[in-house]
């Protein structure tokens, strides 16, 4: 279906859809269709661009981004190592698969008390971000490793490859597109994870801003903070999608 749509039409659809969403959000706020807690979009933007609003959001956004980045790196590193271990030592495979699935199935709320007592209030956002990132990356890398063709595997067997060389010459390069695929999905997950992690008593950050704005009924602030987190997530996603496309061109 997509093949028949021209690029210009596609852009028109995207712009049209976004515009529709913006207008709808504005109208719902204007006429208070969803009550007073849904302010008009113009009011949110006015607050976000005011000096106090902008600096408040910016300061907290930086904290959240820093936690998200730490979690992103940590989660990615652990997941890549874990997936590689599962590949090289088949004995570990079922255990690691299940461990990742169980870890992902535990609600963050249930983990929060545990994390606060171990990682502390300031460390929790990064850890929750790492957990979200870790699962996505583990699944991506596992499927990337599974993607090697039997002919390539046979080739390395006949040429007498050691396990390590099979990994470095075939399996790791082969998994590069899957790695960046995972990163594109993991980047927004990291920001979301860090934000949620900040709900549990972090001293700063977008998550804290959201909670306190909600409790103090500062709707413009709450929506501005949410908007900022969304915009950053979206940009992170789009940036990694671009890198992923480059990786696919280079490695596939």
């Amino acid at each position: 279906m997509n093949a028949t749509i021209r690029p210009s039409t596609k852009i028109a659809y995207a712009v049209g859809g976004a515009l529709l969403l913006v207008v709808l959000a504005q109208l719902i706020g204007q006429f208070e269709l969803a009550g007073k807690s849904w302010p008009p979009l113009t009011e949110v933007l006015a607050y976000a661009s005011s000096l106090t609003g902008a600096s408040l959001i910016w300061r907290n956004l930086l904290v959240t981004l820093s936690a998200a980045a730490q979690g992103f790196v940590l989660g990615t590193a652990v997941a890549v190592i874990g997936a590689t271990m599962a590949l090289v030592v088949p004995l570990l495979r079922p255990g690691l698969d299940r461990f990742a699935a169980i870890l992902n199935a535990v609600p963050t709320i249930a983990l929060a008390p545990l994390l606060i007592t171990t990682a502390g209030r300031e460390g929790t956002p990064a850890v929750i971000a790492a957990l979200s990132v870790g699962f996505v990356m583990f699944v991506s890398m596992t499927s990337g490793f599974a993607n090697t063709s039997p002919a390539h595997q046979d080739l390395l067997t006949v040429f007498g490859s050691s396990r390590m060389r099979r990994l470095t010459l075939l399996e790791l390069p082969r998994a590069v597109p899957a790695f960046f695929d995972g990163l594109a999905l993991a980047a927004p997950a990291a920001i979301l994870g860090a934000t949620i992690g900040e709900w549990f008593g972090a001293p700063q950050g977008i998550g804290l801003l959201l909670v306190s704005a909600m409790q103090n009924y500062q709707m413009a602030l709450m929506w501005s903070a949410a908007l900022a987190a969304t915009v950053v997530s979206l940009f992170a996603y789009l940036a990694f999608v671009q890198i992923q496309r480059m990786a696919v061109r280079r490695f596939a």
Partner: protein
Amino acid sequence: MTSALTLTAPIPATAQESQPRTAVSITGADKVFSLARGKKLQALEAVDLQIDEGEFVAIIGPSGCGKSTVLRLAAGLDTPTHGTVEIFGDTPRTLSAQHRLGVAFQEHALLPWASVRENIALPYKVAGRKVDDARVDGLIELVGLVGFEKARPKQLSGGMRQRVSIARALVLSPDLLLLDEPFGALDAVTRRKMNSELARIWAEERITTILVTHDVDEALILADRVIVMSGRPGRVRTSVDVDFARPRTGAHTRSPEFHTLVDELTALLDAPEGT
């Protein structure tokens, strides 16, 4: 399975000019694949195959006759259910661990992210040896890919990819070269061209070679000996010596003797079971 470490293949001297060393010795090889729900498929039955050092042997047979399985046994990618496979008196696994096997498949199996040069140099990296640039350059020239060293596989035609794949198989000067329908996916014209190129390359390297193909002409252009297999379960039906002088040019392939042999072998492929 550990094949018995007997003496180096005590083969009775066959009636040949000298006494060349036995390169490949497959004796009484059965291969049974276990399928789902306890079903079994017998791919090979009592396959005996002796190949001398420096010999070019083509295995032909109808599709599904197990000729690729024979090659996989020789490559150590499969082990026979019964029987033994010895290559230069050792197991195929030993040979590949010593990086003495070369292989090219129908699917070229080039690394898509690596250039022509890097693909040809891959066996050096697999073996953990320093890449011999002169050798790689020599092979690039030999297979006629000068100017394409930096190209990636997707930028090449099917024929060029197979040339890279063959150069890669040859780069470590293997003791045994295994070719599984390397030109199977090419059109007829390119295929003949690649046949004569392979004949030229082989004439320079003289490596013991097993070529699996379903193309009778290809087998006769390239091989010293053609093994005809029959299918289900795969058995060696007959072995035919090919005495045409090399290089085998168009004049040879157009000769009546060539055509007679083609017809003879084609008839063997078509004929029903029971010799």
